[in-house]
């Protein structure tokens, strides 16, 4: 007997309909994008080749989708089986988040009808970080689907197939830990080749892959804590606070390591002066760092780790910290040179909003109809 069960509630609710309208608005603008061209929908230009779609949908969106990755490491590598109840919803959120990243990459691709060139060995450029990101993200979406497929098979009672899958699942779980480590670090490496266009406080060259993977991991944990606390509020389920407080400890360690490298680089490379320049770059750096320090300070206290409200606030702070780190590096402080500026257009924003709405709609549908959430336990 499975320990998971569908919520079995109505799917079509007023919030669901609002999300549906947002999605339809995005569909309209996507129609314009594919019929007339990207310039009719976005504010992209010769200096800012990447805007909201790349930086939110892919760079930030996939990091927000690292919950499955972070929990897989805890459950299967560090062997903490007690976190199992959190795994299925985290995997679902990861699958949807990465799918959003894949869709985002496709709609942003200027020559989308040739996308398969990246899969053809004679076209591949093994020097390019983008090749690693493209192939690895595509592979990980498949792996996430396989990791999540026991839920689908369980729903349709395909017991035979499920047993067969269980025998090889360990390999896909291992891949599901390796692949995000690879492409999340590469997302950071992409900044290296952008050279002087990346603000010196974010251009850390050799440290880029490490900082990117550490923040992805932090955001993965944060999103698990966030979703679990929120679904206990939203669906009125018993709080998972005892489980989450354990994750809080791991988060403290991760942020500490991250800050040592992040601030150490600034000091060693003699960039301390930039911190107090009083310009936009320095203010954003201080804000970003404060958002990382807040959860570190709060979660150091064992009492705070058991307080679901403080846990939720810490998670929110970390999500903003990690997102802002990427947004700052890729977009806000990114400076291609004189004569260029960028702020996303309304249609551009509506496409991203609509795709996130779709992601939330699918999440709601799946948890209500498939055995994703853990059976409520009386504690």
């Amino acid at each position, binding site marked *: 007997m*499975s*320990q998971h069960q569908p919520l079995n509630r109505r799917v079509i609710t007023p919030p669901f309909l609002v999300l549906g309208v947002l999605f339809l608005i995005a569909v309209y603008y996507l129609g314009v994008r594919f019929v007339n061209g990207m310039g009719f929908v976005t504010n992209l230009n010769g200096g800012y080749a990447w805007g909201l779609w790349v930086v939110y949908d892919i760079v930030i969106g996939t990091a927000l989708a690292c919950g499955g990755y972070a929990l897989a490491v805890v459950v299967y590598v560090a062997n903490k089986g007690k976190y199992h109840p959190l795994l299925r919803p985290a995997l679902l959120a990861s699958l949807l988040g990465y799918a959003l990243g894949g869709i985002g990459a496709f709609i942003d691709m200027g020559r989308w009808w040739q996308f398969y060139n990246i899969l053809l060995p004679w076209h591949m450029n093994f020097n390019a970080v983008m090749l690693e990101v493209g192939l690895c993200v595509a592979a990980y979406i498949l792996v996430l689907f396989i990791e999540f497929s026991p839920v689908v098979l369980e729903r349709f009672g395909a017991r035979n197939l499920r047993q067969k899958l269980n025998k090889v699942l360990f390999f896909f779980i291992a891949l599901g830990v390796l692949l995000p480590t690879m492409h999340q670090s590469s997302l950071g490496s992409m900044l290296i080749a952008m050279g002087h266009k990346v603000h010196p406080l974010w251009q850390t060259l050799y440290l880029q892959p490490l900082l990117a993977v550490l923040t992805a991991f932090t955001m993965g944990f944060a999103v698990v804590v966030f979703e679990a606390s929120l679904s206990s509020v939203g669906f009125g389920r018993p709080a998972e606070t005892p489980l989450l407080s354990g994750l809080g400890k791991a988060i403290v360690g991760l942020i500490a390591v991250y800050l040592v490298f992040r601030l150490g680089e600034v000091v060693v490379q003699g960039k301390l002066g930039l911190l107090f320049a009083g310009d936009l770059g320095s203010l954003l750096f201080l804000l970003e760092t404060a958002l990382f320090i807040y959860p570190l300070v709060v979660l150091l206290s064992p009492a705070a780790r058991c307080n679901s409200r403080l846990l939720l606030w810490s998670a929110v702070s970390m999500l903003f910290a990690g997102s802002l780190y990427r947004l700052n590096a890729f977009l806000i402080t990114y400076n291609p040179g004189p004569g260029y500026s960028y702020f996303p257009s309304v249609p551009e924003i509506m496409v991203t909003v609509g795709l996130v709405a779709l992601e939330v709609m699918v999440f709601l549908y799946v948890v209500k109809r498939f055995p994703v959430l853990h059976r409520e336990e009386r504690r």
Partner: protein
Amino acid sequence: MKRRDFLKASVGGAAAVLTGGRVEARPNLEPAPNAVGMLYDAALCVGCKACVSKCKAVNGMAPVIEGDWYSWDSARDLSKDTLNVIKVYRDGEAQVKDRVVNGFAFEKRSCMHCVDPGCISVCPVTALRKDPQTGIVSYHADACIGCRTCMTGCPYNVPQFDYNNPFGEIHKCQMCNQPGVERIDKGQITGCAEACPTGATLFGTRTALLEEARRRMSLKPGESYSYPRGDVRHPDSRYAREAPAYQQHIWGEKEAGGTNVLHISAIPFDKLGMPPLGERSHASISETVQHTIYSYMALPAVVLGGLTYVVRRNMNDDEGDES
């Protein structure tokens, strides 16, 4: 493998990534043996934009019209219709040419045909290629997926995507040698160098252009010099003119591994909007990091092996506690 060993191995791998990268760093690439390029002398440029118009004639591109001004091409920057543009530096009353304060100056912007091009390094599908002989950086739309990473990887913002076309492509200067034009293969010179009335844009081999630039560096301000037009190796014509006070800086001799299109000027290059570049190309740093982590896929393979072992063991521990 015990979990502790695995963690140790992971940390060791990470350390190798962080430190080993510098040991076997990939150096900057070297210039192609018969590299061709151009020398742009900002002090000779009079801003007539004959090069802009000739470039459009050769490459079949429409002029950029701004308002009711039809007399000349009003392109302000590179775009899908402009592979070569003349920009202006202006300060205060802009009275004297090549003076920083209250002066003005011209600057040409077009593909620099880098020796170690960022665009080529970052393109996932090899849509940008460098000719092994001439060093010309060319674009191949049949390979391109339109991800525009080349635009982010170019220090000069040269590659331009045609956003207003549902089937757009990247546009950049290919030194008038793309299929259908092939001026260099036919023994001709680039359109812009051919059209330039003052020899501000010269064509030639990188070696010959570098020699010419060094000769100009050694001129005393006011000294008469016989300036060539067209191809530096066998000029169409020459004219005598007083040398300006050149900045002792040949842009592209060393910047980010060097470029085949060289610039010299009488005012500092940062005033002309050139980017702050060191000698090491960011492409070489990026590739060093990438090839250290993914050398023969050894590190990922080892990590995957370790992970597979650990996960399998831990799943067996949880027997009965199904996912």
